[in-house]
């Protein structure tokens, strides 16, 4: 079927079976290979993207369901102004500076989910212990085999603090 969706702020036209996974349409039809497949079963979160502003597993979304909807992938997290170099989201920068990525397979999914968590204000005003517990709960659907999570949690908290500081 002919599909029209908004991907990372731009219109995307795709001809695909409605049963095809959003994950495969992103990687194969749109060549957005930042989104990774870990398990294909909804368990690992490597394929996380935003669908109409919610973090979802793109391996569990039939692309027919995305017609007319907005999708944001890891490629769409950075701010991009015409003629300027792109600026990474605070979460992405913090993952780099805190060492929250090793092999990198889980990283796109973690970045998307963490941006969703931070931008939704879920950590706003929380003290450190509460914020750490929240990050662990909200990122529980993103599995990482390398880092042991500690540095990922550090990064998400650092990004949330930076954005809070910028706001106030």
């Amino acid at each position: 079927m002919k599909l029209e969706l908004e991907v990372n702020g731009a219109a995307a036209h795709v001809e695909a079976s409605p049963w095809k996974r959003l994950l495969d349409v992103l990687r194969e039809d749109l060549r957005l290979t930042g989104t990774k497949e870990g398990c294909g079963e909804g368990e690992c979160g490597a394929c996380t993207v935003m669908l109409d502003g919610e973090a979802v597993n793109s391996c569990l979304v039939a692309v027919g369901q995305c017609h007319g909807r907005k999708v944001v992938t890891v490629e769409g997290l950075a701010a991009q102004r015409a003629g300027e170099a792109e600026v990474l989201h605070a979460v992405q920068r913090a993952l780099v500076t805190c060492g929250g990525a090793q092999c990198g397979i889980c990283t796109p999914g973690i970045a998307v989910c963490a941006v969703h968590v931070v931008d939704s204000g879920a950590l706003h005003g929380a003290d450190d212990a509460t914020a750490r517990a929240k990050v662990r709960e909200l990122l529980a659907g993103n599995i990482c085999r390398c880092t042991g999570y500690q540095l990922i949690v550090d990064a998400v908290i650092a990004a949330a603090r930076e954005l809070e500081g910028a706001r106030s």
Partner: protein
Amino acid sequence: MTAYVRPRDLAEALALRAEHPDWMVLAGGTDLMVNAIHQKVPAGIVDLWRFAPIGGITVGDGRITIGAGATWTEVERHPAIREKLAPLALAAREIGALQIQARGTVGGNVGTSSPVGDSLPALLALDCELEVASVRGHRRAPYSAWCTGYRTTQLAPDELVIAAHLPLPGANVRTAWRKVGTRRAQSISKVMGAAAIEVDAGVVVSARIGLGAVANRPIRATAVEEAVRGQRLGAQAAEAARAALRASIAPIDDVRSTAAYRLEVAENVVARFFHVS
């Protein structure tokens, strides 16, 4: 090629069901899309994701009505559900993780009706009545009679689940919910239970107990419900509940737990519902 329809209204959705009972009814896809690339390609899809006629949560007439299309994120955040139907809000928070809660729906949990569906013991304890529709008309079905076996339900091939109706518990009803799994998020339950217990001056007037993962479908622990009637809340009711449960359920052995472990945990879960907090 798989046919795909996003119905405009309920009449179109029901007509599609009547005409193509073999088509897949797809909501959040968190059950249906697991391992999708290794599955049989469906002949057609009726897409219920964000389908307005079955969406939304409303409070009124002494009950809360949850549209089948409501997601677990919506259920968990809803203030009236958190306050009045706490077991359901607590279950919602432990279904999968953030990504699963954003897509998984009430209708999907009820549609699959797996013995480990987390909301299902809560629906049992909270006396849920499902509203179901087809071109033949609307009907109501108590959730306690919905499951007919392992992952099988009363749903006819031309029907859709429209909503779950839950009466608001009275002021003297205490509710509780407990899930035991390997970790809090993203783990399939070993045992879970929900309770709604009506108490008068410290004595149990009546109780409804829903249990999951202890039989081939979610069940009401009716033997416990009878045994605790008239018992004093605390050790007395808790011990009556434990004995009645032991005599009435026979959980299974599987890769996740042994039957003996499940029975002991289920007893503890149920007994704890009757402790004075």
